[in-house]
């Protein structure tokens, strides 16, 4: 694990109209680190994640990714986004494309790979998430767990330096959660840098290097999982953890 962070969020602020959602957030993620973000609904977790690849424009502070301030107007954000994968709660697969079509699209149109090479890389990515036999299926022919793994393959195919996960298992039936967590576990083993918003506590305890607790637009506490879950220092963290950690 290197010491210079690959992602460095500095004093990040974000408001929707009068509502201040991020009130000066500092967060550094080092290469190969898996950082978990937990916190009550509405505390700004998704907003923070979405500011990290500028799906939301921030109102103050900086987001330095791999040495570039991505909040700067001059930054070519499309180039940065190739290097930051994102996985959404609701999968957001393209319903008019097959699994391999979903994965290959950006390979063809962003990386400008020829069709044959893009499809080959798409199948390799699908193989990595255990779905090589579903390459030609359309999203509505796949289970939720399979759809989410296709979405992960879509992010991985671009060979990102980091992947953002926004509640990747929240929309899944309980029996399908395991297959998605298994893929994330493999990614962790392969050394992928990951920033994960999730309430899968068992997975966090087993796989996270660090857990960050957010509340009302602030990072209230962060530390190794055993500390944040086992011996939280702040009353709000204690309160939150006691309500979910069962």
């Amino acid at each position: 694990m290197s010491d210079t962070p690959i992602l460095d969020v500095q004093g990040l602020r974000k408001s929707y109209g009068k509502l201040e959602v991020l009130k000066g957030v500092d967060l550094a993620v080092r290469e190969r680190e898996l950082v978990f973000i937990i916190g009550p609904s509405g505390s700004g977790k998704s907003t923070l994640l979405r500011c990290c690849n500028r799906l939301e424009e921030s109102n103050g502070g900086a987001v330095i990714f791999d040495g570039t301030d991505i909040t700067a107007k001059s930054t070519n954000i499309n180039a940065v986004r190739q290097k930051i994968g994102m996985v959404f709660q609701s999968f957001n697969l393209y319903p008019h494309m097959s699994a391999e079509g979903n994965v290959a699209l950006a390979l063809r149109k962003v990386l400008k790979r020829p069709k044959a090479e893009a499809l080959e890389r798409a199948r390799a990515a699908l193989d990595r998430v255990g779905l090589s036999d579903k390459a030609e299926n359309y999203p509505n022919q796949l289970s939720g767990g399979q759809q989410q793994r296709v979405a992960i393959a879509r992010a991985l195919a671009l060979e990102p330096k980091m992947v953002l996960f926004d509640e990747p298992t929240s929309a899944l039936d309980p029996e399908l959660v395991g297959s998605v967590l298994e893929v994330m576990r493999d990614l962790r083993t392969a050394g992928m840098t990951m920033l994960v918003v999730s309430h899968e506590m068992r997975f966090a305890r087993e796989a996270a290097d660090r857990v960050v607790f957010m509340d009302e637009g602030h990072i209230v506490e962060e530390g190794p999982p055993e500390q944040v879950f086992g011996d939280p220092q702040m009353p709000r963290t204690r309160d939150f953890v006691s309500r979910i950690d069962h």
Partner: protein
Amino acid sequence: MNADITQWDRFLASFFDLAVMQKYLPDIVDGFLLTCHLAILIVISGLVLGLILAVIRAYEFWLTSWLIVVFADVMRALPPLVFILLLYFGLPGVGLNLSGYAATYVTLTLVLAAFSEEIFRAGILATPKGQWEAARSTGLGFGQSLAYVIMPQAIRMTVPPLTNRTIAIAKNTALGTVVGVGEILNQATTGQSFSGNASPLVLGALAYLILFIPVVVFGRWVETRFAWRRT
């Protein structure tokens, strides 16, 4: 009984006089062919223009958006016949002579463009925001996301309303008769006034049915074909 038979004969004579029909059939066929290619031209250029306007509007530059909204509202509010007459009788006053055919073509193309722009736009707006986010998060640009991810879904959603609107506007080619376009209705009314008999009008009605029933059936098929389940 006798009187009934006479009435029936009179009915047949005035609506289904075979000699009259035979005489005016070639004219009606001419009208049929003209209506066909006028309608096809209108449908193609109207839908293409509507799609282009919807795409331009998706970029949300205030000036272009404002112009498109004004255009769409005016063309949807104005009765097409009024616009045809304005072009046909009004433009010569500024030195532009438009044929009746051109006035009808331009009017109906613009009307279809206005309606289809609104329909395509509704389809773009109805496509879930998450589709944009997924596309943009992989590094696709705005235009690429629109072209490869959003429009294919938006167009699929808009096929049924678009089909209905397209049929309705294609039928308005009959308005061309007012400015002397030799389409079906024009040929039929001309035949009717020369012969003093309604049979050419019946032929004209048949010609419309032959032209548009397949289109309506096709529209119904398209509607079921594209009513595909979202995930």
